[in-house]
């Protein structure tokens, strides 16, 4: 029994997580829907009445209720995992990553799930907080809808269906992500 608790509470390897995500995708398809999380952003906009001023949000959002419930489940799952299934150990990042981030002035990379010096309400109104949280969030919301999907919709569902459109989107994800990581983060992280 102690063994099981130990296995569950230690971090799960990629070969558990990857197949589990594919099976979740299958379950959603089997229940007559699809795996695409960012659609919730559009649904919530519509829920708040955005359909009155913009045809893009003028659709029967109630048909997407299942996806909103899935999102509530995701929050719940995050809570359960952090409260009851966590070992509290630091994330086993590669040595290179740790050294690099320390060089940028981040203390104890991996000790928390996110760098708390950036992702906190105290830093929200600093330039760093605005860039990482507000601008970053905006790009995620704008980009996913422009590209018609996020990691779940394109990288997992779309690539699984061998869709060329999704491959282009994933290439775009990496062009954007690499540009920020290689050229912008070295400038703004130490600031």
């Amino acid at each position: 029994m102690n063994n099981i608790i130990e296995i569950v509470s230690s971090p799960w390897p990629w070969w558990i997580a990857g197949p589990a995500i594919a099976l979740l995708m299958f379950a959603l398809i089997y229940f007559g829907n699809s795996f695409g999380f960012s659609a919730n952003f559009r649904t919530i906009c519509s829920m708040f009445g955005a359909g009155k001023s913009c045809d893009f949000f003028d659709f029967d959002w109630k048909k997407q209720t299942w996806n909103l419930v899935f999102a509530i489940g995701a929050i719940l799952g995050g809570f359960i995992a952090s409260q009851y299934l966590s070992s509290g150990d630091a994330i086993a990042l590669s040595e290179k990553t740790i050294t690099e981030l320390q060089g940028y002035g981040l203390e104890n990379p991996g000790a928390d799930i996110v760098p708390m010096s950036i992702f906190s309400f105290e830093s929200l109104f600093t330039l760093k907080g605005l860039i990482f949280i507000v601008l970053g969030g905006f790009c995620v919301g704008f980009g996913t809808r422009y590209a018609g999907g996020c990691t779940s919709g394109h990288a997992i569902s779309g690539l699984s269906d061998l869709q060329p459109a999704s491959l282009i989107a994933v290439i775009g994800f990496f062009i954007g992500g690499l540009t920020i990581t290689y050229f912008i983060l070295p400038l703004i992280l130490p600031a």
Partner: protein
Amino acid sequence: MKYFKYLILGTVFGIVLTKAELISWFRIYEMFRFQSFHMYGVIGSAVVLGVIITQIIKRTKMKDAKGEPIVIAPKKLSIWRYLLGGIIFGFGWALTGACPGPMFILAGNGVFVIFVAIASGLLGTFVYGKIRHKLPH
């Protein structure tokens, strides 16, 4: 009750992504610096099994839970919307260290400031909806 199964599936999603550290900003940074196999292993193995599952669905003409034939709609192919939208999403992914699903899961993990990123994401989606006719697709 109709929606209960989605609550369970969402909960499993949240647990898996938390336990495999996929919601960590650090893991996303590490991925974009090619310093660990972890994220590539997750996405790669999900896609390999996903391709197998999707092929089985199509070749066996599988029916869904209600007995209806499963139809996976193909995405209309073009370049601009996927490339440009993808790049903008990539900017946000590397900055926030999270895509939309992990943002919600992070909230469950107690990183409440992520609600601001979610609100900002909603605004981003709204602005896209407003100006999409002017964008190349």
